[in-house]
């Protein structure tokens, strides 16, 4: 598997990462290098092996259904560039 320039531009756009035109060909080379490495891993036979999700066997931590947080609207919007009455304000988005 390898990527071309169009794919690099598309992936960057999906991730909202600004990529200048003169960076694209370099990124194609870097990403193809990574994909080549992953392809090597593909040579290992993993038939019948469950995908590993953690290096130590452990169960997911869970919590009770209780309200223990919230009531801090000022903190939540503290870093926002624009607010009004504890709302975040963002450039208008209407579909």
């Amino acid at each position, binding site marked *: 598997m390898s990527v071309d320039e169009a794919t690099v531009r598309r992936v960057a756009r999906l991730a909202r990462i600004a990529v200048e035109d003169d960076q694209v060909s370099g990124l194609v080379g870097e990403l193809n290098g990574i994909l080549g490495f992953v392809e090597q891993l593909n040579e290992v036979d993993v038939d019948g092996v469950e995908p590993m999700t953690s290096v130590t066997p452990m169960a*997911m931590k869970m919590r009770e*259904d209780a*309200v223990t947080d919230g009531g801090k609207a000022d903190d939540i919007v503290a870093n926002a560039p624009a607010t009004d009455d504890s709302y975040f304000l963002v*450039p208008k988005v209407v579909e």
Partner: protein
Amino acid sequence: MTIVDTREADPARFIKGATGDWEIIVGMEVHAQVSSKSKLFSGASTEFGGEPNDHVSLVDAAMPGMLPVINMFCVEQAVRTGLGLKAEINNTSVFDRKNYFYPDLPQGYQISQFKQPVVGEGTILIDVDGEEVAIGVERIHLEQDAGKSLHDQHPTMSFVDLNRSGVALMEIVSKPDLRSSEEARAYVTKLRTILRYLGTCDGNMEEGSLRADVNVSVRKPGGKFGTRCEIKNVNSIRFIGQAIEHEARRQVDLIEDGGTVDQETRLFDPKSGKTRSMRSKEEAHDYRYFPDPDLLPLEFDDAFVADIRATLPELPDDKKHRFMEAFGLTAYDAGVLVGERATSDFFEAVAEGRDAKLAANWVINDLLGRLNKDGVELADNPVSADQLGGVIDLIADGTISGKIAKDVFEIVWEEGGDPAGIVEARGLKQVTDTGAIEALVDEVIAANPDKAQQAKEKPGLVGWFVGQVMKASQGKANPQAVNQLLRDKIGIAE
């Protein structure tokens, strides 16, 4: 996913086009808010409303370094819902990130379940025109709700409130088994009933606790599935019906004019009754799902599932069949009574130790009819089960006629009080004294000699006389006694 068509094409459900009949194919994704106090991955409140960003933790706002911790109650409710839909329960499931950008989604992804949902295939039975149809459920998965954007507060800015961000939703995905707008409405109604019986979602569509994405396509009867359009976020059962009707018609007209249906997301506008394209760019739907590295797989054992199963209530289908078998109710009446758990509980309280069919008639026709007329919810019903039962007892022991009983019910509704006491105090007791009734009968016959003559030839006319005598007695005469006396006196052969 391979789509299997489980239905026979039924002409009764077709819609007409210029080139012949068309079949509507509908599949639904219903988002049901879990009835939890706190959110799926944070301890902030799920309460509806609230000041902007007040029910928000740093997790819900996606502040750097915050980690999600799952709410066990939400998992239990998803399993409970799965059991209620007689679905497979997956003891291992996985949370994935669904990536997209929108201002009300601070994480830049929604935590959802993609390849391994917590609940697999199940079934919902719906009643359409007296016919029972099994609709397949594909899966139920748990996911986070997004925040809310307001676009009408400012000329150039949108307002974002994250109070809903992170609230637990169950996405209940049907198979494309629905074949008309009526079936789709019946499906959501039934699903809502089951969720309310289970208590896993309050089903409140006005507050957005239940909303549906509706997938619609059309095809020539029995032919290949057509291209579907997804109508997003329809928030009332009536609108779901309207949206499907309009969208199916739009697609038929488009195809018959030589066009093709584009797979796209559309919005339903309740004001115009039409759907319109959201014109999203195609790549916006490349969600690049991958397992969320912040969360281990969701695992539980069979004992966990068995404990939940042990607390399931009697479900609407089982209750309906019990009402039909134990009480001899019709499928229709039983269906109406089990539509809401509170209604069926009320009915059972009234029917206890009484004629169940009579109780069903009074609950459905008089009580529900009256509630509906005044727009009152059953929870605010002024007539208790004991009071309605008291009215029925008075009919059963012959103290009052059915007609007077309606008046007594009305008095209880308006003023309250004990039905027997009301009948006693207001002199509404049925007159069974034959002498008194006989006098009234004689009077009415004497006043209408021509009609009495006609009634000999046409016994049907006796009904008119019964009416006159009842009127003269102010409804208190026993109608059977009146009928018999009239027949004897006029001389109508049996």
